[in-house]
């Protein structure tokens, strides 16, 4: 402990997930000696993907969920990505509890790479429809940036990540720099044409995926196994482990310290700057302090919030950088997975090869030119068409050779469409620290007090109705609509707790992701988001991170921070 040269760096990055990996890479590339702190264990690319090549029959319960898993992972086991092949990339729920004042699903990955190992890999740009909405509707606070501020950084992020996709020239979904798209199958193409013929402005397009449809910067290409959440030995998709951390390490400027739980950001009350951070080593239980000129917080939305709430001082009695009182408030998550499914009688002589690691997107088509729904903002559809496999026979009567022979035949074509929709920022959707209930590391736990409200529920209803309408239009049979009653957190896009804004009285960060209150602290994970938009946010975190690192470095060089 103490200010010796082993503990002092140019920059500290807290968290090694999708935005932390970017921060470390950018700062290292600019020549800064950077310490990246990760609370979990290391996961070395390829070497630590222990289940990547395991055949399904080699899992004891053939990848079905076990009672043991539900017991040990009472929350994580509910994640769509959780199974015996990926469970080691999910947090230990029993050691890391939290408190649900209202139902909240908190899915986490506490290891180097974080959720970038298990994410859905969908990459979409936000547009000015998103950036202007708060101001135009008088909701929350205005974003301090517009699309033009971020456009070049989206280019930059896509160029490094490698995103497969197709440009569609839509104002609500900006074009990007793409590798070849993973084209739609024949039923999806048919649907796209049908939809366009009735709704000329409505598009169905291949999902934009951080899966490499062509070799890219020494990585990939994707081998179409659709086992991304186990980690990819072919570097076929973007993660901190496959891409940003190796790039950071190549500069020689990165120090990576796992098992390092950051408990507080340390304030120098004389200079009103962050000195560094306090770290609890989760293995040895020792406490360390690390110092740096700039600190990037990328511990995930709720992780970063937890640290800030726990960092109190006479200057910041309610949490680090919280003179606005907004820290921990305005929690948003996309409302999702409501929509429709159905069966298609046709294309029985068509099939496909390869397991595409994504599907399609129908970009948001509501409230584009003024309000045309009974709710504000909107949603897009994600999903896919496929032929039913042997699973359909699990609930089918039949015996003998006749029954068995059906196993070998592809089933009918089916489709699943689910909406992913915007959530408004409500001050009362909040998280707070519980100092009475401690986790296994002796740290205060989080109280989650958040719920979707009227606007989101109306939108979800329309997801089901619109989904059914599309399937009816396309001639599907056995159409089934659904609106799962999922709590906030279930979409795994929680954001907003340290939002960007123009006014330090109503926001925590300025237009450069810099804390209004403490100029050498930057936040570029989901905490920073002023509105949620309707598309997956990770690409935006990457672009904001690269931009903020550029700004921070320039400020440092200019002696401003």
């Amino acid at each position: 402990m103490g200010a010796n040269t082993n503990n002092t760096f140019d920059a500290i990055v807290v968290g090694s997930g999708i935005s932390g990996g970017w921060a470390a890479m950018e700062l290292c590339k600019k020549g800064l000696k950077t310490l990246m702190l990760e609370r979990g264990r290391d996961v070395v690319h390829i070497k630590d993907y222990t289940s990547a090549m395991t055949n399904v029959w080699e899992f004891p319960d053939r990848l079905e969920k076990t009672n043991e898993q539900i017991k040990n992972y009472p929350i994580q086991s509910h994640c769509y990505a959780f199974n015996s092949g990926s469970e080691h990339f999910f947090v230990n729920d029993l050691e890391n509890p939290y408190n649900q004042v209202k139902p909240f699903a908190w899915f986490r990955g506490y290891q180097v790479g974080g959720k970038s190992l298990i994410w859905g890999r969908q990459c979409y740009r936000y547009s000015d429809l998103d950036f202007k909405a708060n101001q135009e509707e008088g909701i929350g606070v205005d974003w301090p940036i517009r699309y033009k501020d971020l456009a070049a950084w989206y280019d930059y992020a896509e160029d490094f990540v490698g995103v497969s996709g197709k440009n569609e020239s839509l104002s609500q979904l900006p074009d990007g720099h793409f590798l070849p798209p993973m084209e739609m199958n024949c039923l999806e193409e048919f649907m796209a044409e049908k939809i366009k013929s009735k709704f000329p402005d409505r598009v169905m397009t291949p999902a934009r995926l951080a899966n490499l449809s062509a070799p890219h910067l020494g990585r990939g290409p994707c081998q179409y196994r659709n086992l991304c959440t186990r980690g990819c030995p072919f570097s076929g998709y973007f993660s901190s482990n496959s891409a940003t951390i190796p790039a950071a390490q190549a500069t020689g400027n990165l120090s990576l310290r796992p098992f390092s739980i950051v408990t507080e950001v340390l304030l120098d009350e004389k200079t009103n700057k962050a000195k560094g951070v306090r770290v609890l080593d989760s293995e040895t239980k020792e406490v360390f302090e690390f110092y740096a000129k700039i600190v990037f917080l990328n511990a995930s939305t709720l992780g970063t919030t937890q640290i800030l709430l726990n960092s109190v001082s006479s200057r910041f009695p309610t949490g680090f950088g919280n003179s606005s009182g907004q820290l921990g408030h305005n929690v948003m998550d996309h409302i999702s997975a409501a929509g429709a499914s159905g069966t298609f009688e046709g294309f029985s002589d068509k099939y496909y090869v390869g397991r595409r690691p994504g599907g399609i997107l129908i970009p948001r088509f509501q409230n584009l030119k003024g309000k045309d729904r009974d709710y504000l903002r909107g949603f897009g559809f994600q999903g896919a068409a496929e032929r039913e496999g042997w699973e359909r026979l699990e609930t089918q009567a039949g015996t003998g050779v006749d029954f068995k022979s059906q196993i070998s035949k592809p089933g009918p074509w089916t489709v699943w469409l689910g909406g992913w929709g915007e959530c408004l920022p409500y001050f009362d959707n909040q998280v707070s620290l519980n100092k009475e209930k401690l986790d296994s590391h002796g740290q205060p736990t989080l109280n989650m007090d958040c719920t979707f409200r009227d606007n989101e529920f109306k939108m979800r209803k329309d997801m089901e109705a619109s989904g059914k309408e599309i399937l009816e239009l396309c001639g599907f049979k056995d159409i089934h609509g659904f609106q799962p009653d999922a709590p906030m957190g279930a979409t795994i896009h929680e954001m907003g707790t340290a939002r960007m804004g123009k006014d330090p009285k109503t926001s925590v960060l300025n237009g450069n992701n810099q804390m209004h209150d403490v100029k050498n602290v930057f936040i570029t994970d989901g905490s920073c988001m002023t509105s949620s938009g309707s598309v997956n946010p990770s690409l935006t975190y990457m672009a904001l991170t690269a931009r903020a690192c550029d700004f921070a470095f320039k400020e440092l060089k200019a002696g401003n921070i």
Partner: protein
Amino acid sequence: MPLKISIFTPFNGIALIHSCRNFMFHNPIRRREAIKKSLLLLGAGYGLGSITLFSESCHSGPGANFSFKISSDQEKVIAEIAEVFIPKTDTPGAKDIGLEKFIISFMKDCCDPGTQYNFIQGLNAFKEKAKTNFKNEFWNLSAQDKDKMVRDEETFSFTLLSTIKLKVIKSPASFFQLMKKLSVLGYCTSQEGATEALSYLPIPGRYVPCIPLEPGQKAWALSR
């Protein structure tokens, strides 16, 4: 200030509910298929056979000391039923691959006590029925008699009534519903099933969105 804590079950799309509790209903497509098939079966004149089986699973349940154990005789019955579903043809059948071992371990590892209890009740009732109707153990019956016994049970298990009971009352799946699911699941995820009855392509290396389906071309073992 007291903190009100809610208990909840998060739900995410179609792939989430614990596979044993709601296996028929976590995929809306499969549920409707099952109802459709059962309506057809009712229409074809198969009677509602074992009313006793229906009411048994309704009224009893596992006690506090219940633990899931399968005797070697019970295991034989499981193996035989699985073989009726998936017989040996030019590709291995259920008994060839020891499918009963998977079925038993799945029941033990993945199912709640209510479902496990139901399974054993149904298994015992079925085993007894062979003795009652044919004066013999199920595994000694002729292939024809084994097939008929299984078909009769399936007719009942896939009826609308059973389906409604499963969905509305949320009772555990019946023995035969479980046998069918686990026979198919266990076979198709076994090395023999996946590589011989299906087309197993662990590393496709390419994605071709639309190809003609050739006659005799097998379905993929792994779905997207």
